[in-house]
């Protein structure tokens, strides 16, 4: 009872005394658990390495600077591959995600009982596995190279794009669909006139958003041998060529910033 009666005036409090006490004990318990966990972590940490970290970091920093600028001539091709992996992968995934989204959306699925669960399973399974793991699997199946990277990115993106798209489909204004149906339009015409115009802005937004994410994801795919700039990164790391590593990191950073700028521009233009 947050309202108390004191000498005839009604005093309002956020919580009763009992509730405040419970909350206080809750916080106490939380702090106790935190302290206990801290001790366990501390006991299993080799503190020597931690105290040593600033010195090592400084050591790597001095080795890595200045970046080996002339190495940039060898990075043009890999960064181009990375961009292609991201772009092609996104395009392929969009082609596959659109039908999956229509099958998964409650208002467009042909059968909510049989087909919708399958579509949702595709979405969940492709989404839950990281593209690096997909790449590892695909390299084993189709061999190392750019193609494995493209397929890995494509598969990983299906679930993401299809999920966002089917949510957009479920949120459309149903009366517009009704109006088109009432004219005697066929199922496909209803889709083209009643549904597609309504989800087009969402679709464009999802496409550039995923492309932007995929550029970042495809930079690391080379670490497992799926092509792109990650290949150079792992090669340079293996031979401890720190000035090359720092240059690669700068190139990746620039590529990501540019892609983010492009996708922000495109989304701004649509909305």
């Amino acid at each position, binding site marked *: 009872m947050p309202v108390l009666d004191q000498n005839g005036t009604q005093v309002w409090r956020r919580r009763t005394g009992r509730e405040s006490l419970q909350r206080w004990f809750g916080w106490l318990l939380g702090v106790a658990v935190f302290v206990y966990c801290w001790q366990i972590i501390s006991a299993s940490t080799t503190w020597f390495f931690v105290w040593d970290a600033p010195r090592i970091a400084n050591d790597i920093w001095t080795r890595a600077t200045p970046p080996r600028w002339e190495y940039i001539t060898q990075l043009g091709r890999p960064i181009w591959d990375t961009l292609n992996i991201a772009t092609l992968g996104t395009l392929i995934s969009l082609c596959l995600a659109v039908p999956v989204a229509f099958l998964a959306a409650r208002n467009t699925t042909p059968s909510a009982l049989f087909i919708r669960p399958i579509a949702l399973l595709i979405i969940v399974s492709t989404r839950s596995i990281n593209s690096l793991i997909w790449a590892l699997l695909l390299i084993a199946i189709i061999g190392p190279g750019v193609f494995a990277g493209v397929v890995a990115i494509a598969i990983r993106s299906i679930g993401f794009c299809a999920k966002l798209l089917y949510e957009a489909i479920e949120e459309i*204004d149903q*009366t*517009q669909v*009704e*109006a*088109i*149906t*009432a*004219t*005697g*339009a*066929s199922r*496909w*015409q209803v889709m*083209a*006139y*009643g549904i597609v*115009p*309504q989800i*087009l*802005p969402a679709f464009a937004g999802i496409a550039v958003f995923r492309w932007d994410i995929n550029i970042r994801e495809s930079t690391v795919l080379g670490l497992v041998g799926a092509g792109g700039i990650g290949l150079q990164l792992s090669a340079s790391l293996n031979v401890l060529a720190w000035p090359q590593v720092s240059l690669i990191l700068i190139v990746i950073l620039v590529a990501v910033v540019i892609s983010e700028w492009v996708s922000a521009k495109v989304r701004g233009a649509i909305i």
Partner: protein
Amino acid sequence: MLQLKKLTKTYKTGDQALKAIDLEVPKGQVLALIGPSGAGKSTMIRCINRLVEPSSGEVLLDGVDLARLGSGALRKARREMGMIFQEYALVERLTVMENVLSGRLGFVGFWRSFLRKYPQSDVDEAFRLLDRVGLLHMADKRADELSGGQRQRVGICRALIQNPKLLLVDEPTASLDPKTSRQIMRLITELCRERGLAAIINIHDVALAQMFVPRVVGLRFGEIVFDGPPNGLTPEKLTEIYGEEDWEATIEKVDDSDDIEAAE
């Protein structure tokens, strides 16, 4: 022309929206359907073109039972019935012209409609209709740029370009101001007269219905409790349809003379 026989709709929740409705609409008659919210007005209209599936009964359009048609035949039958909606239900991101032409979807194939390659006769008719409702200059605007009254006019064009026998009109004025409401009602009734169209107009503005239509049907809890000319709507009848209320002000003869400039 249109005949409903024992039309019944029971929703999955068990609500009986329509209880064995019998109704006949002759060719060219405009009819207003009044009744409180939840009386089944919208359900009845939607059962006729089967946006809502009727539970039992017959919907006879020129002798054909629409309730039993397969999906292909139903599409053909829907072309005969134009529908106008409360919130206009235009496809907001398409142009006025595309919205009007979408009324022809039942007549053109998928690829033609997808590529917007409508027959010239359809395009001519679209321009003629837009001119008739005074929106010719808006043909290239996107639907979401129009005002409420303008959108409803586009909705009317979309229904009429189907060249239907029957108009199903669901609360055409509920989202419009009083003056625009009258203009839209006048436009609909005029167009019906010009083309000899029958129409069922759901409306909850009783005065507006009395002003424009020759026949009023009152619905209450899914049953017809009144069917007759507008001046037959006495306070007792309105009480039967809507429940107890002072009805004298509502059925007072509305003076229409201040509205003449709006008629053009």
